[in-house]
């Protein structure tokens, strides 16, 4: 039996099809949204450092821009395929829609392996990419951002090339830039704070007060640290944190019944969010197995590390005390586990709602760039709060109105909003 190989785009289409079924979309709308509206394939010829010539393949897909200029990252990957880029651009359309920011979905990439390229050659690829596509991207058309194996440096090279060609300063062309070079403040905090804002709103719906709750969180990176910070400020108590130990190549949970102290933990944490076990022990933390964070007697769980953490096997061990799970990471819950969580009556805040803080902040970066006026960090975070709160409540209302889970309603609502925009424009 010939099995069909894994294809991200096929999977994205399948997901869309089942939502389309629920929404009873017409054929034309399905046709429009199943595939990207625009695709660019182009060659980027480069003179390598040794003088030889090499041609790289570049892509840009705009899945849908009915709600606003397309937004999405640029990936440098040795085995990039157009199908991957298509799938990712579609997911961006839904993501911007659920976060309620006036942007569409796009994605791009170059087939290349930065491990095999010098810095200068990477710069040439960045500039070459812009030269090929500058007519079809721009602050009011399509706004790229960093993604797999690209970083702020690549963004600056691209911006520079774009500005040279167009003869104008247009920092809004691209996001993910360093602060001071068109980047936005508050970016570091955005995702972690965003998760807690959704939790705060969820607590209100459950008539709970943050100060009466406890939390356990997986991961101790950026997202977790800021989530803990804001949650603690709100009066909540985090009693367990897990993190990956680089040296032992496994994860551990750090538990303190009286509540973890963020500052003291940060002091003994390396750049990857790995906590020093010995020193944590001295500070009175119990060192437990990596999966123990999930089984704590707490009100709130935040998986904020990697995907597929809550599975069929461990979901039953989640304490009956747990009331909220907020997905700080992408795809931490498997579909099987999802069903059981639903049956346990736990309020689940799905990933692309819970961690929308990042994309909202990118949007803010673009907005600030376009008016060339930059907000203070407080202003950014204040506006983030408004956006997140609004996004959460829209999904919540949608879910209560239609008796759907938060995950399904976020999905359906996102697609519906895009459909509405397309229809309003008279496209379908």
């Amino acid at each position, binding site marked *: 039996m010939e099995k069909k190989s894994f294809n991200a785009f096929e999977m994205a289409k399948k997901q869309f099809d089942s939502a389309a079924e629920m929404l009873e979309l017409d054929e034309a709308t399905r046709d429009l949204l199943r595939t990207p509206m625009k695709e660019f394939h182009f060659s980027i010829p480069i003179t390598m*450092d040794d003088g030889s010539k090499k041609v790289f393949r570049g892509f840009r897909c705009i899945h849908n821009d009915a709600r606003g200029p397309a937004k999405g990252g640029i990936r440098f990957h040795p085995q990039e395929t157009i199908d991957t880029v298509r799938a990712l651009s579609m997911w961006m359309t839904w993501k911007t829609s659920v976060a309620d920011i006036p942007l569409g979905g796009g994605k791009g990439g170059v087939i290349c392996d930065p*491990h095999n390229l010098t810095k200068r050659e990477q710069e040439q690829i960045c500039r070459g990419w812009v030269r090929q596509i500058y007519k079809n991207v721009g602050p009011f058309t399509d706004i790229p951002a960093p993604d797999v194996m690209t970083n702020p440096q690549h963004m600056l090279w691209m911006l520079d090339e774009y500005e040279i060609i167009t003869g104008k300063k247009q920092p809004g062309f691209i996001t993910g830039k360093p602060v001071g070079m068109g980047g936005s403040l508050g970016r570091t905090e955005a995702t972690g704070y965003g998760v807690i804002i959704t939790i705060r709103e969820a607590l209100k719906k459950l008539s709970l007060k943050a100060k009466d709750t406890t939390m356990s969180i997986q991961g101790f990176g950026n997202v977790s640290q800021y989530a803990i910070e804001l949650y603690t400020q709100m009066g909540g108590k985090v009693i367990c944190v897990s993190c990956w130990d680089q040296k032992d190549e496994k994860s551990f949970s750090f538990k303190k019944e009286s509540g973890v102290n963020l500052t003291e933990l940060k002091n003994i944490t390396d750049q990857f969010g790995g906590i020093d076990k010995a020193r944590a022990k001295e500070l009175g933390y119990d060192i437990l197995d990596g999966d123990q964070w999930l089984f704590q007697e707490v009100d709130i769980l935040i998986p904020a590390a990697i995907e597929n953490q809550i599975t069929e096997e461990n979901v039953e061990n989640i304490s009956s005390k747990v009331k909220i799970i907020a997905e700080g990471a992408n795809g931490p819950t498997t579909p099987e586990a999802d069903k059981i969580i639903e049956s346990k009556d736990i309020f689940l805040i799905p990933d692309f709602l819970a961690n929308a803080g990042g994309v909202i902040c990118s949007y803010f970066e673009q907005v600030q760039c376009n008016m060339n006026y930059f907000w203070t960090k407080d202003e950014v975070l204040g506006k983030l709060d408004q956006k997140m709160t609004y996004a959460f409540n829209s999904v919540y209302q949608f879910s209560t109105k239609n008796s759907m889970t938060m995950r399904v309603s976020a999905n359906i609502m996102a697609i519906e909003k895009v459909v509405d925009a397309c229809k309003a424009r008279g496209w379908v």
Partner: protein
Amino acid sequence: MKNDKLLSRLINDLNERAKESKCLYEIQNLLNDRELSFDEVCYNIVTILPMGWQFPEICKAQLLYKNKIFQIEEFEETPWMQEVQITVQGKVTGQINIYYIEERPQADIGPFLNEELTLIETIGKQFELYVLHQQLRTVFGNHGNIENSTQSEWRSILDLLTRTDKGFAVKITRKMINFLCIYGVKEAESLLEKFSIPDECVKEKNFPFKALEDIDSMMTLTDVFSVAERHLTEEEILTNVHKWIKQESSAFMANILNNNATTVSEIISALEKYHFLAEQGLELSGLRQKSFTVALIRKFMSDQRTFIDVAKKHLNVDSFYKLTNNLIHPEHSLGKLGGKSAGLIVASHILLEDSNNAKKVKNLKIPKTWYITADGILDFMKYNNLEDIMEQKYKDIGLVRQEYPYVIHVFKNSPFSSEMIKELSKCLDDLGDTPLIIRSSSLLEDRMGTAFAGKYKSLFVANQGPKEKRMTDLMDAISEVYASTFGPDPIQYRAEHELLDYNEQMGIMIQQVVGKKVGDYFFPAFAGVAFSNNEYRWSSRIKREDGLIRLVPGLGTRAVDRTSDDYPILISPKNSDLRVNVSIDEKIRYSPKQIDVINLKTKKFETKKIDELIKKCGKNYPIINKLVSVISEKYLLPPKKFGTDYKKENFTVTFDGLLSDQVFMKEMNDILYTLKQKYEHPVDIEFAHDGDDLYLLQCRPQNLGYDSKPITCPEDIKQNEILFTANKFISNGLVQGISHVVYVDPVGYSNLSSLEEMKNVGKAIGLLNKILPKKQFILMGPGRWGSRGDIKLGVSVSYSDISNTSMLIEIAKKNKDYVPDLSFGTHFFLDLVESGIRYLPLYSDNRDIIFNEEFFTESTNIFKDLLPKYSDLSNVIKVIDVKNVTKGREIQIYMNAESDKATALIRDINEEYNSREHYHFRTKDVNKINIDKKDDYHWKWRLRAVEKIAESLDAKRFGVKELYIFGSAKNATSRPDSDIDILIHFIGNKVQKEGLLIWLDAWNTSLGYYNFLNTGYKLENILDIHIINNDDIKTKSSYAMKISAVSDAARPLFVNKK
């Protein structure tokens, strides 16, 4: 205590020596001063002389020459006097006298010291040379005025010669006749006959010919020169005579150097004399200079022809004169310095003395270094009656290991001879109080081809505090390095290479540590090692001959040795921009996290966390801005000149600043290129940088160690033995003893339809890594192992999932119309390098290679039996038990980078392999080679030990049902560092389990110690105990599946159940 007393006396003595050398130095200056007249020189000599004596205030000097007396003032002659005669050309022409005008206590000779006698004799000798030169100078007139010379000039030279040195006059005559004959002067030929041997003597006769009658040589001289006068111009005669006289004056060197038994002391005084004469205008012919140089190279460095060939092109007699200023040697030393010392001296001359090269590497320096000759150790042992330790090397290795601590103890408590102490003290004065490194430089180490690196100790000393203390520390370190000659590791290595009978001696380099003092710490900004050949390429764009640099912050110790918990930065000097790690995460993860420093306060060598050190030292860390990058969100930024706060921000070591300015890179390239070219061999260097200058610390031919020797595939292979061949990006080496293959089928893998299944492939590999015999299996799979981004590109594994494999093979199989880029192991490249796992890219579709796909896809696949849980993946993952499917054979992979060819063969088990060095591939610690015993020794004793455990185990008391053995001890494949896998079927309660574990722990400790004594491997847990219960056996979970497993099944042992 003994040392202390000796020391305080020594310090007094040293003041004396200092006075003496100052005196000698001043006299030398005086004699070289051409502005002064002869009389002025003599007056100055008597003025200076007294300052060299113990009691200068009552010391008077007097110089008698011909009829003159030179002295400062009148004084009465006393009985307390020393004298030396001035003999010029065999005639006593004068005398130097030293008087004490008052009585002083008895010393060595009357009130005088032995050294004072030596001093006056030395000065006398120098004065003689001076007089001789003065005479010649009057004769020659000024240099360069040969054209204006009058006829009488060469005649007066000859007159002088005939009167003073008849022998030499005859020599000159003979040379002139030869010259005239070559010139074609008939008269000369007839004169020549007078000197010639009668014809009949030339014919082969078996009896000696009769000596010629004593001819009147003076007569002949006149004859010869009259002939010369008739046929040559004045100028020609004068020039020739001039030349011959000069040549003659270096004859003493030839005498010294051509004698094998001459000691270093004799050579040194000859070199001094030569140097003195050279300053006076002595010139050597090119040939003579060369022959002296070669003789000196043999004397001090090496007899190896390959080495001499290189060294003679770059050293000259003067190099050795300079060397002797920093040389420490026992009295009768024969002079060999040992490999490391010789290597550094030659490299420094190649780079610094040759002006072409020196221009390129103008910032390169060599740290101040003193050398102790290799026979210093013999002197030390003789002085302390330790000669019997020499026999240590013939003892059983277990005994050697056991006694080694005792040897160290004895050596460290033995004093040095006062002669050596004196020399070391001089050395310490010269080096000052910066930290020192005491490097071993043994005779064996210099033999091109033997990989003797890292066997002997090199020790750091902080060198702080009062001089007595520093002396004690220095001697302590030297004696410890001496003791390491008798350590078990080098002795075992020598035994394996049949070098035991070689008379190993240990030279020492005492070198200033390169670095700066920052707070309490002393360290270089960065250091590292560099190789001409890169055996670990991480990109297809890097060529082998581009070289490789391993860089670390601080002392280079972390770059030299592979470390398991830290990573050096690897650089390809020709492509410094092609880094191993590219993304920010990788760059941080694989950056050096620790730094080695010398703590001047505790006087210890310490390892610190780099980020803590940076926060502490901040900007005082030399050129910190070139070494680190600031971690700013998702961005690595170069530190700013002013804006960067080293106390607050986070940093990671990248060396980005250093590499981006290109200066360092260019310099390293030049150094590597120049040395390789001149050595005509790839080299391996150590270097350090203190923030201002780059220092070369060591240089030797690149050691083609076990994992980097090109291995050519045997010729007698049959076609059906070949499993695959590869011809792209091949490194050197040999991987043998492969009993299992794990093959992830590229087609099967790409056909997997869900993410979950792909992830499971990674998980299954991780489990296989635990089950399969360590380092005896290879992993083969499509595309990029460890791909983090898109799992489709390759099996998603982390390093711990593959840590036990012996080789990682990435297969680039055409997928539709494109061939995937391979990762070259980049995802865990540094882990692979540091743990010695080999990597091979396999382009299986290439037409000119062989790929026996059938073997992998059609052989019996035991995967399902090993991991029944993942049986649905059995058409993707194939596990092949090579022994089973090939009737007892194994896989061997021969890799040759020179020809860029690798061949994997199915062959009979290589017996040769079982004995020696190839273990190397399997052991984690590259520097340890401890295989002395026959291969079957290691598993046999392990098996016996476990049988004994089973037998003596009280099964009832401890609740044990069965005891099994599996793994290497059962499979007869144990290595010295193998553990013993035991499976215990346990049916008792908690208390019994605790008891059992305690009982086993005692076994563990004693077996571990036994293994250590025999092999040097310290294993914390030699017993790897796996306890399973009834449930495990029922469900066949965890290790229970080992029982009645298809491959490597656990074997039950007899358990005493009474």
